[in-house]
């Protein structure tokens, strides 16, 4: 049924830390790897070795520049995948019932054998989280690695989404955002986790942690500047020897 459940028992999702993400794209690669080799149709590439190459990805990392009114610009790496929204507009538009939101954990999934590839769910998603696989003709999206998180054949530490498991800077966290005592919920409360496009009314489960404020660089005239500063002062302000001669000679020309 493509009607949304009234409520879900749990709200499994991701918390993405924009402060620590280094933009390495390892989550993109591990996601593509796991989801190509495991559940559902593989994530195909088109013209992978040609000039005009493209492919299906469930997770993509953007980079944004933020220029404050004063101070230096900041570069923020921005991983984006399905936010497993509570009011998921992609689910209700589906004509076949292929798209659904699970009552037990809130994961939004596509039943690929029912999907007709009309693309309407991708039209309804404001985040660009759904991509129609060009080889298979069905809609692909993040499954929150549903085939990992409950998989008892995997060691316990691997029972989390591939992107979370692989992240080298610990910028991705997985857990139940419906439980206020879970680690992820505490993290969101502590760091002021935010929704993307709240005005779209999708009530995303995934939260983003905003980057922390940057330190301001101390200058030499500041009292707090390094006590070794006097010893680190430049020894020579003016060039000497050959460089001095060259400087003067060039000035005369």
């Amino acid at each position, binding site marked *: *049924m*493509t*009607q949304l459940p009234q409520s879900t028992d749990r709200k499994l999702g991701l918390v993405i830390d924009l402060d620590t993400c280094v933009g390495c*794209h390892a989550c993109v690669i591990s996601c593509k790897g796991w989801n190509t080799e495991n559940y559902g149709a593989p994530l195909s590439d088109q013209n992978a070795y040609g000039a*005009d190459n*493209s*492919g299906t*990805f469930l997770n*993509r*990392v*953007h*980079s*944004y*520049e*933020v*220029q*404050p009114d004063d101070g230096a*610009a*900041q*570069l*923020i790496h*921005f991983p*984006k995948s399905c936010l497993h929204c509570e009011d998921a*507009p992609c689910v*209700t*538009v*589906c*004509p*076949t*019932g292929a798209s659904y939101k699970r009552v037990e954990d809130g994961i939004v999934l596509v039943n690929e054998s*029912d*999907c*007709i*590839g*009309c*693309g*309407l769910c*991708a*039209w*309804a*998603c*404001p*985040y*660009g989280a759904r*991509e*129609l*696989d060009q080889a298979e*003709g*069905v*809609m692909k999206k993040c499954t929150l690695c549903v085939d990992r998180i409950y998989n008892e054949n995997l060691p316990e530490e691997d029972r989390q989404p591939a992107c979370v498991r692989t992240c080298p800077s610990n910028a991705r966290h997985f857990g139940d955002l419906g439980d206020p005592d879970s680690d992820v919920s505490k993290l969101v409360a502590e760091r002021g986790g*935010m*929704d*993307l*496009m709240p*005005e*779209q*009314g999708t009530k995303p489960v995934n939260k*983003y942690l*905003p*980057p922390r404020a940057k330190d301001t660089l101390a200058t030499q005239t500041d009292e707090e500047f390094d006590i070794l500063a006097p010893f680190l002062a430049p020894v020579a302000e003016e060039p000497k020897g050959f460089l001095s001669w060259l400087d003067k000679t060039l000035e005369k020309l």
Partner: protein
Amino acid sequence: MHPAPSVIFFTTFSGLGFGLLTWLGLGAPDVTGWTAFAFLAIAYVMAVGGLLASTFHLGRPERAIKAFSQWRSSWLSREAWCAVGALVVMAIYGAGLVFLDTRFQLLGLIGAIFSVLTVFTTSMIYTQLKTIPRWNMPLTPANFLSISLAGGALLAGQVQIAMILLLVAGGVQALVWIRGDKAFAASGTTLATATGLGDRGAVRAFEPPHTGTNYLLKEFVHEIGRKHAQKLRIISLGLMVVVPVVLLLLPFSHFLAVLALASHIAGVLTARWLFFAEAEHVVGLYYGKR
């Protein structure tokens, strides 16, 4: 949005076909026998042809039958039901007209209602999308319905009604463009809200996720086509409304009527191309594009 020919043809011709079915169901023109057959044939070719065209943009057209299952929540599913309802009821009604020389009035009325509902549900597929602010307004169904009924009246040879409805459709179309131009800004969605970073400064897309293109950019970001939008709007209104109305005002001849119809269809095709090409999906913001 990518202006896919399959969807442009589908909305234009199914709109015309179901518009004609509406008028035939209401008994205008009040025809029976082979004349009725000719009218019905034109309506069915357009309506069914349009519906078939729409299946070309499916990734898995062989499973299209499954689209009937979710009528409780999905406008696309409701459209499928209304279309089949209209085609079946009008086929029985049409059989009465052609073979029995009898007009089953109630059946015709039901068929007409289903035909109007088909066009309405088609328009709601687009209207419901908050992600595309230009479509997300009550004027969108008014736009689709007025064009369908006007074109249907033109095909049905209802000259007086057609002229009035063409002018109404033209007025609605102009309003759609005026309001639509302001819709994206009015939606409040910007790169600042998309990234949640707006309160720290001006956000600029610095680097896209991949050097190549992707499905999202091909489907939702179509910047080139909008270059001549203003000129195309004038051409579209001229062909869709002005030329047919002028031709209908002249002394009636079948040649002029066909010319009026051809002009109207060309105008609607242009308007539908603009409907898609000018529509901006909010996902483009993530890529620094509209």
